[in-house]
């Protein structure tokens, strides 16, 4: 068994620990904010609801995810692409980490000082302190450096292993980082060209429709940047953990390439209800959005095929007999499996959100908040939680104990119960019209708003249970750092049919990147020219 390079382990752990620190602080902000919204508590006058909301969104959605993902991808790149990180890759990883950390600290300070209460979507013409935008730029540029490290590691491996298909984990890490590079171009242009000069006062006005469009060009692939690492765990890691096989190596690669193609030219489905974009181009992007459902259908098939094949090989009988032989008491399987299961209703909700005019029923209601608390905060988060139970032991030379495993199972159940209450209430009350991102209010005791109250209280209770879940996972991370010494294998699955060769075209990056760019050009050129020609600009405002 190959042990994990200890120096690489330090880089991985730096990212993982930073991620869980962000989860803890973001969790405190989230729990408080949920209780305020539910009318359970009132904050002292010097703490604002919207400052907490901004901190919660930025720390959870941007910082926890990005740090965890980079740490996880580096661990897999080190393990599968050569057994240790090349000096240049490691250096890029550390520089990236440092730059993101400087950005995060500046950003959090500016948010807590109340200079950037613009939420994590920072829609213009609300104008935050320039340091907030600079902090964001540092986080993005830092993540680019980390991405370059992974590309470098991959290229060197390819050169040394001519003619061989790359390891599946390494391949998927490259797709994830490539998606991130292409997607962040939009937000980088928005922040560097539009927001920073404007917030410093070098230019007076801003094109609002353009800034929103650049944001959402980035905002939707962002959710796939969260999801793809979870899919890496499902495709590559889970089969090994349960003692099964990867259903098909080639189809796994194809599904990742489809994500690269279809997750980017779809940002308009977040802008369906807004002026300044023609119905035709909105619908064109709705069609492309539906295409991105296909690789998720492929993933669902592959996962359950892996489970059923394993069950049948163990002699399970009947249509669903294979379910019984799955290792339910192993948190490394159980937590990601609950994530997969919850992705079924979460994905269905997403199809509703993207359905053009049907979006009017749910747009900016708590339904949307409920939706992404199922996708990113359950499917992705539970998968990431499930990863730490083998990743931390593997990279630090320790072993998971049965007690920690049990606590992991409890943590997963606590998370599911809390999320059922919170997200379930959010979905329901959202359909009744209750808006998202809004502090406690009864709208002058309007009867419709009074009807929302019990659901909003249930949301607060769900939020408190989830906060207990955050404390439990932080406790588990600390215990894992102090687990008994030993050797833990880095689990990498093998394909079911090794004789099947993976087609070479799946690794022709130029081809796939070319198609991705062509689709982006198709979906965005005409609307962007239109936005630039019909420039309506607005001055900035500080409304908090």
């Amino acid at each position, binding site marked *: 068994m190959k042990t994990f390079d200890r120096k690489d382990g330090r880089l991985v752990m730096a990212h993982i620990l930073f991620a869980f620190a962000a989860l803890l602080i973001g969790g405190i902000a989230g729990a408080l904010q949920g209780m305020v919204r539910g009318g359970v508590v009132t904050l002292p006058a010097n703490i604002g609801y919207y400052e907490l909301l901004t901190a919660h969104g930025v720390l959870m959605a941007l910082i926890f995810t990005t740090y965890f993902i980079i740490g996880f991808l580096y661990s897999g790149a080190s393990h599968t692409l050569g057994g240790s990180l090349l000096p240049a890759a490691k250096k890029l990883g550390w520089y990236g980490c440092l730059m993101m950390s400087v950005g995060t600290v500046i950003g959090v300070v500016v948010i807590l000082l109340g200079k950037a209460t613009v939420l994590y979507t920072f829609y213009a013409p609300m104008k935050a302190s320039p340091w907030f935008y600079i902090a964001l730029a540092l986080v993005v540029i830092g993540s680019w450096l980390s991405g370059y490290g992974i590309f470098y590691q991959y290229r060197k491996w390819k050169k040394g292993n001519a003619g061989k298909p790359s390891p599946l984990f390494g391949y998927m890490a490259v797709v994830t980082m490539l998606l991130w590079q292409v997607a962040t171009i939009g937000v980088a242009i928005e922040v560097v060209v539009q927001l920073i000069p404007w917030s410093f006062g070098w230019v007076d006005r801003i094109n609002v429709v353009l800034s929103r469009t650049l944001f959402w060009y980035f905002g939707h692939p962002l959710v796939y940047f969260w999801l793809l690492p979870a899919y890496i765990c499902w495709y590559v890691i889970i089969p090994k953990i349960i003692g099964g096989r990867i259903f098909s190596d*080639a189809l796994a690669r194809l599904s990742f390439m489809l994500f690269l193609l279809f997750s980017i030219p779809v940002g308009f489905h977040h802008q369906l209800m*807004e002026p300044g974009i023609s119905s035709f181009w909105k619908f064109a992007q709705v069609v492309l959005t539906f295409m991105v*459902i296909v690789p998720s259908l492929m993933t669902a098939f592959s996962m359950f095929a892996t489970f059923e094949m394993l069950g049948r090989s163990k002699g399970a009988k009947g249509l669903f007999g294979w379910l019984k032989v799955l290792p339910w008491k192993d948190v490394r399987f159980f937590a990601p499996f609950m994530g997969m299961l919850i992705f079924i209703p979460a994905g269905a909700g997403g199809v509703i959100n993207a359905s*053009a005019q049907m979006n009017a029923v749910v747009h900016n209601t708590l339904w949307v908040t409920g939706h992404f608390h199922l996708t990113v905060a359950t499917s992705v988060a539970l998968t990431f939680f499930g990863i730490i139970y083998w990743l931390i032991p593997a990279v630090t030379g320790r072993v998971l104990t049965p007690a920690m495993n049990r606590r992991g199972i409890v943590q997963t159940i606590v998370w599911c119960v809390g999320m059922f209450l919170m997200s379930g209430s959010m979905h329901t009350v959202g359909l009744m019209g209750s808006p998202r991102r809004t502090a406690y209010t009864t709208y002058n005791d309007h009867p419709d708003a009074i009807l929302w109250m019990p659901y909003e209280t249930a949301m607060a209770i769900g939020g408190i249970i989830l906060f207990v879940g955050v404390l439990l996972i932080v406790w588990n991370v600390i215990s894992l750092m102090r687990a008994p010494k030993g050797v833990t294998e880095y689990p990498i699955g093998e394909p079911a049919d090794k004789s099947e060769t993976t087609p070479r075209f799946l690794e022709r990056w130029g081809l796939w990147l070319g198609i991705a760019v062509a689709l982006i050009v198709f979906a965005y050129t005409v609307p962007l020219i239109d936005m630039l020609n019909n420039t309506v600009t607005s001055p900035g405002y500080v409304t908090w």
Partner: protein
Amino acid sequence: MHIHRLEKIWLGIGIAMLAIFLIVLGTMAFSMGMAPPSEHHHTIDPDKVSETAPFDKPGLTQTGDKRYEAVMVAYAFGYDPAEKMEVAAGSTVDFMVTSSDVVHGFSIVGTNVNMMIEPGEISHISYTFDKPGEYLLLCNEYCGTGHEYMATTIVVKQEARG
């Protein structure tokens, strides 16, 4: 690349369903007039909202039998006109809304009226209020400290009998 027969069936059903959804949505949007609110090329100088007609006099005007036009301005943190708008049940209201500062929302609870209001852009939507009652119109896009107070009501009165 080998694709298992069952996976072909699974993907075939999935893709066929997605295609049906899209055909339904597209038909409704483009031939039944149910496209999402996407007013295009109808802009205004956001600095001069209060001087530009019709937004210099926000309010409700009757434009036909049971048909009204509501000209409204969203601002941090409220909507103009400030006074309650009243229409008879069964009336259709054509809303024309812009913002005099940041981005706002425009959502009428219990209806499908839900759109974004952006500075410099004029958003349009029409709705027929069949049921009488006091409708809650609220901002559902975060717009600053007083966002949770940004709301108004539209009163739909029972028609006089006879």
